[in-house]
């Protein structure tokens, strides 16, 4: 295909494609650059009692520091295990009946360890919430009566600040979860349950709305075919409400991540929130830049979690358009 002027349209297309992509790359870079300039300018103007507010270079330095600290800690860990083996060997030599045990490393958790802890906690809390909320949402969406019965409870619990749950959760876990050899640490359960309680509601509501809004033609088809109710859910309800379910899941995961950091700060449970709080308590000249670094990492992980959810939705859902935002 060529135009009357002889200009090949592929060239126009290529140009358009190029300009679009340049835009997609250049504009964010320009945005970030402007942000960095404003940030470093503003930072240099703010004097705190712990020194200047950290600018981009201070954060970059801390990224390197935190990574090095992580490596140092891993070396210490290796030495720890080696010492332990030597000690065990000595004891076995002295006391042949002794069955040597290897005990876990007792050193501090590095920044990278804390990221891992937070990720595990948020995913566990989210998974538990999803396992409860999605079936519940479907049931509510299918049954008007159930909806009328449960709706007031959902409406009351939905706006509760997640952190109001934390003291209750802490006390209940301490009272109920008593075992000499616990499988999970109490602090993990506390954070996890708080996360679960907070990301339950958006998922329940979105799922039920999605289910109740299914095209009536499809319901009729199901009725004509006399599908058993489980098959009806599996073949009609689930596929039709997947976009709505995923919207709820994305909302929930976003909330879960924010709640978790706050819960960790408040309860001093391991994770990024504890890292931030410890640094605040330390009050060293590096503390603010370390907190700032954590803030970026928290934001970036939140972004990745959201993208991950979106990718999952693209794979699972038939309605590709709904996953484009």
């Amino acid at each position: 295909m060529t135009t009357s002027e002889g200009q090949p349209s592929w060239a126009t297309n290529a140009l358009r494609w190029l300009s679009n992509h340049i835009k997609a790359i250049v504009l964010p870079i320009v945005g970030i650059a402007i942000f960095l300039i404003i940030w470093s300018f503003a930072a240099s103007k703010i004097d705190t009692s712990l020194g200047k507010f950290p600018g981009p270079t201070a954060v970059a330095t801390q990224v390197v520091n935190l990574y090095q600290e992580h490596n140092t800690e891993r070396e210490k860990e290796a030495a720890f295990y080696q010492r332990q083996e030597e000690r065990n060997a000595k004891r076995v030599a002295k006391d042949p009946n002794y069955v040597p045990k290897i005990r876990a490393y007792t050193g501090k958790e590095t920044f990278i360890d804390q990221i891992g802890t937070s990720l595990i906690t948020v995913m566990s809390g989210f998974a538990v919430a999803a396992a409860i909320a999605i079936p519940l949402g479907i049931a509510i969406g299918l049954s008007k009566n159930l909806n009328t019965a449960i709706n007031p409870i959902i409406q009351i619990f939905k706006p509760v600040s997640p952190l109001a749950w934390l003291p209750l959760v802490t006390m209940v876990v301490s009272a109920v979860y008593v075992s000499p050899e616990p499988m999970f640490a109490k602090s993990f359960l506390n954070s996890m349950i708080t996360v679960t309680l907070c990301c339950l509601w958006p998922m329940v509501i979105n799922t039920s709305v999605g289910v109740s809004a299914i095209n009536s033609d499809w319901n009729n088809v199901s009725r004509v075919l006399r599908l058993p109710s489980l098959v009806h859910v599996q073949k009609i309800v689930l596929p039709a409400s997947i976009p709505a379910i995923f919207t709820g899941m994305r909302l929930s995961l976003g909330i879960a991540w924010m709640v978790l950091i706050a819960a960790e700060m408040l309860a001093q449970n391991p994770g990024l929130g504890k890292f931030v709080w410890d640094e605040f308590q330390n009050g060293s000249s590096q503390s603010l830049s370390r907190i700032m670094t954590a803030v970026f990492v928290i934001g970036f992980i939140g972004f990745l979690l959201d993208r991950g959810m979106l990718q999952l939705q693209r794979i699972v859902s038939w309605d590709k358009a709904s996953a484009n935002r």
Partner: protein
Amino acid sequence: MGQALVAGLCLSSSVVSVSVSAEELGYPEKEELKFGFIKLTDMAPIAIAYEKGYFEDEGLYVTIEAQANWKVLLDGVIDGRLDGAHMLAGQPIAATIGYGTKAEIITPFSMDLNGNGITVSNEIWKQMKPNIPKQSDGKPVHPIKADALKPVVEKYSEAGKPFNMGMVFPVSTHNYELRYWLAAGGIHPGYYAPHKGDTSGQIDAQALLSVTPPPQMPATLEAGTIYGYCVGEPWNQQAVFKGIGVPVVTDYEIWKDNPEKVFGITKAFAEKYPNTTIRLTRALIRAAKWLDENNNANRPEAVKILSQSNYVGADYDVIANSMTGTFEYEKGDKRAVPDFNVFFRYNATYPFYSDAIWYLTQMRRWGQISDDKPDSWYFDVAKKVYRPDIYMKAVQSLVDEKIMPATDFASLDGEDGFRSPQTHFIDNIVYDGTKPNEYINKFNIGLKAGDKI
């Protein structure tokens, strides 16, 4: 009668004096332990015992975890989340007599002497300064007494403004030290009346004391919520470093070589794991010795360890200010206080009954103990909480295994658990641990025999 009881105590502790040889110490019953601490320099023995491998030498694998505040730490030890912790000396005592949370907590190891200070905000300092006599070089004469603060407090109360100050916990050393200093200067810090449900400690108060966790003190002062505070290091030096306040007096000047923190474990833990208890005490004793060895030669290294973010985490310079034998008052006014932090010398690690009794007298003085108690009651409580018997077993085995020389503990020979009468208080009142009720009656401000709120 008091003397007879004291004699009884002497007997019980001398059973395990250094000269008696103990059987060989067995392996620890519990090897994986978790200890809590608050971000303060006097947690050093725990950090050093870990970093120098003293815990590992005992076959103990210890995880050390910073706690948010003293209440969380105490609850952690009581409910078993923590096996032991760096504690305020008043915590095991108060828990045992049931003030606050009731639990049986004991201490086989006293962590240090001194280490606290009282800081006021720049604004208060400006108002206090004209009331303080000057040295020939123009610097204020130390120790600064609360007499200089009294006119300031009076001005605030005339203006109808509350004079708020911070301390770290209702039964903390800091609460008693701040109260002691204020009362010695004629400022009433207020009474507690637990039997009436009043645990704020502000009855009749001229200065209103409230609780703030140690690391948050500087931030709270900066926010203007409190005008001054009493806290352990490095949070007084941090105020100087940040330029937000001026430490006016150290606890060394309020009571020379006063007992500070203890290492607390539950009585159940000590009974269930006797070897572990002795072994952890051994590790802590060795760490304390290391901290004071060769005239504090190891202190710079200790400061470096403490400034790690998982321990105290403040800057090296801030921690070093007090840990290396100096203390900086008003910015630029750095003075030598060689005994600001004592971890081992002067038998700092030995849990003296008389130290526990002093805390009890202060609890009675300020109404936390609402009724009169006979002297014998003070001795009984002290004996329940402070456990020199465990301490001496640890010492004995350290000496037997030639890990430490007997000369390190020579002055503990025949120790009866009572320090000789203490004469180094800012108000010159003498404390004799064998006569608690007599001591309580000596104070101008405070409850005396027969008083009840």
